[in-house]
């Protein structure tokens, strides 16, 4: 197991190099002047000064080498647009909030989505099943920004129950995390339902019933654990959705997270911020995949031995 983990961690280095290279190339392909804030042309003197300051007048391979060095020494450089903060500052300040948002969304998804799937499976083809799956369909199909705006309108504005935007206390965190967690919630519900239905047909479940075990024990101990495997596998790609979903949710709910920064950095061509956040996101995805693989091994002992 340890060898497995170490090998996976070592793989992150070539992945990161590739990500840096691709981001670098792509950002340079979409032209645009990082120093032009409004429609006003930047005076040539100012343009030259800024390019010198941020090493943009160096040849491309020098700039690339500087980026790579920066990433591996954990110094992501200054922001081209927000002149009083470095990319490290921005990440330190804003990433924890996005992380919290993403984790809370996952919590909603697990706490509501999985029981939804379980109930639907246990009460298959009844009103419970149909209505829960209908809700799940809605949650899957309706885009999160629409849900977000509707929630603000009904819950905050009309009912006055929760604040409309911000991230200052627990009250502020409910609506955004719910809006973000809706799709994973729906996805889990369907997955768990499907896999439970399949598991419930298995011979060993029939054996357990024949042995006289209580229904509750059968479900919780034998069936659930096996049914969760597809859900765990799904967590890794869902993570990608949650990361991109935070961009929209953060803008709508005015949450000072990294997603919002990422979007504005791309439109304002803040190369170092884009690079820094892309690298950070890649590392997270690689690590999350690793965690999922480990969890998978815990849930399904058959896969443990397959790994060398």
């Amino acid at each position: 197991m340890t060898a497995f983990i170490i090998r996976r961690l070592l793989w992150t280095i070539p992945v990161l190099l590739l990500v840096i290279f691709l981001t670098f190339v792509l950002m340079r392909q979409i032209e645009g002047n990082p120093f032009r804030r409004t429609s006003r042309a930047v005076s040539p003197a100012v343009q030259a000064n800024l390019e010198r300051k941020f090493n943009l007048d160096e040849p491309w391979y020098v700039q690339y080498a500087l980026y790579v060095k920066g990433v591996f020494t954990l110094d992501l450089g200054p922001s081209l647009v927000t002149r009083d903060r470095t990319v490290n500052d921005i990440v330190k300040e804003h990433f924890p909030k996005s992380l919290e948002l993403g984790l809370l969304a996952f919590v909603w998804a697990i706490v509501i989505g999985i029981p939804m799937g379980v109930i639907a499976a246990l009460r298959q083809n009844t009103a419970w099943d149909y209505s829960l799956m209908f809700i799940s369909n809605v949650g899957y199909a309706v885009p999160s920004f629409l849900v977000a705006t509707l929630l603000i309108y009904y819950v905050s504005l009309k009912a006055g129950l929760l604040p409309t935007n911000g991230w200052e206390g627990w009250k502020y965190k409910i609506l955004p995390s719910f809006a973000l967690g809706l799709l994973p919630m729906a996805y889990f519900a369907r997955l768990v339902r499907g896999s439970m239905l399949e598991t419930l047909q298995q011979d060993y479940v029939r054996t357990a019933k024949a042995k006289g075990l209580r229904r509750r024990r059968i479900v919780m101990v034998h069936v659930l654990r096996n049914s969760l495997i597809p859900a765990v596998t799904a967590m890794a790609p869902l993570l990608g959705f949650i990361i991109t979903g935070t961009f929209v949710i953060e803008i709508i709910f005015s949450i000072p997270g990294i997603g919002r920064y990422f979007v504005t950095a791309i439109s304002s061509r803040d190369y170092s911020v884009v690079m820094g956040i892309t690298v950070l996101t890649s590392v997270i995805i690689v690590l999350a995949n690793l965690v999922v693989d480990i969890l998978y091994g815990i849930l399904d002992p058959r896969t443990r031995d397959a790994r060398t």
Partner: protein
Amino acid sequence: MLSRNRWLSALLLSFVAVLLVVGCGGGDDESDDGGGEAAAADQTLKWGLGAEYNLDPGLATDTTSAKLVLNIFDPLVKLDDELNAVPSMADSWDVNGKKVVYHLKTGAKWSNGDPVTAKDYEYAWKRALSPELASDYSYQLYGIKGGLEYNSCEKNCAALRDKVAVKATDDKTLEVTLTSTQPWFIQQSAHSVFLPVHQKTIDKFGERWTRPENIVTNGPFKVEAAQPSASITLVKDQDWRDAADVKLERVEGRIIVDGTTAVQSFEAGEVDVLDEQLPAAETPRLKETPEYELYPGLGTSYYGFNVKENITDVNQRRAMSLAVDRQSIIDNITQANEKPADSFTPEGMPGKAEVVPEASPWTPAAGDIEMAKEYMAKAKNAKKKITIYSNEGAPNKEVAEALQSMWKQIGIDSSIKILEWQQFLEFLGPPPPKAVDIYRLGWVGDFVDDINFLELWTCDSGNNNTGFCDKEYDALVAKAKNTPDNDARYAIYKQLEDKLTGQNGALPFIPLWYITYPNLERESVKDTFSINLLDQVDLTKVEIKG
């Protein structure tokens, strides 16, 4: 069992159905009683800011930052409602041709107790010009002798820095020598880039000097707390020189970039004023509310031609301008009560009445299709298939589509290309590529003199994407810059405007309308909270009424 399930499922389904029906029912009455009325005695302003702020006057480019820095630092002059310069930190000033002398008030202090002196202004202006800071707005100081040279310096800049002709001859006197007589310089120095900064703080903390724990200010308000990207809290500086006249005690700003959320936050009573970030789609509904406020802005929105190789015949340009029904676009698309443009010089610009005594014949507010067709017929090398370039964002696409249908009536087929903002700017050059026939742009004034608008169209201007180049025009601009007498100068401006939009003008662009700033303001603060033509807010005038 069965019936209970059926009952439950019916309940669940009907609940969901009701939600959907109500949601799709469209907006109905918005009662604005979210408990947001600020108490009469509580002078706290809750402000929904529209963008992230930068508290460094040398680097603040956007209007949100400008609104904040102009209230935490003390400018030499401010602008009154007619945009005349009035004393602020400067008590009086003398203008003698190229020489300007400011006489500062005494006794003012920085928030850490240090006295405010003319040296602070000298330091700040030279800093804004420094190549190390590379400030976007350094060009505002190019009017000072030695400014451009210092800003363009690549190495050994200390010598050039000393040659910049702004000097604090003593604690309360600031002497400036300009490159030419610039009668607008005093008003120009009301801009945020001319604000003072505290040198010792910058020396000590470098680029982190604007953090709330480090920052030192000298304005009517000081920074109590700041969460980057999220919020900022200002409190009245009780030791400010005119603190007795300032009614507002506290400003709680929170950044709400998304327009829809900002409006919802306002309607929920969480903020009392916004920062102009109203979504275009909601303007028709918000216009009917008592909290809606509209301010004219010093800016002109226009569509520029590529005159060099594409729309070369002036008659076609005239025809296209005549075909535009500006009022209809304003009433139905932009819906912010903009004023249809009758020239390039915007409404509110000092001297407008002399510069544009009568409207341009080519910009009828409701359009004139018949006359447009006449001129189109006169055009010799008319280009009948054109491409319109615009950047994305509401309502640009809809405006382009409206123009497309208006020009169809005079026999021009146009296709529309929408580009992302930065790519759009790169694409336009100057010089614009051959693919561009006509493009959308606008110009917002930096300071209140028409030269700021008219010098756009000189041959070398980096903001002239039309290819229009007239040596006589350039000569007149140079002459105007050396004409201190306002009336004489306005007469030259009239000639310049004639060359652009006059009867025999080249019409390198179609003036559309003069911009406005729509905003939402709670009735308790609506009378005193005001945005001027340059998009500035003076918080010392704000008072929250009961």
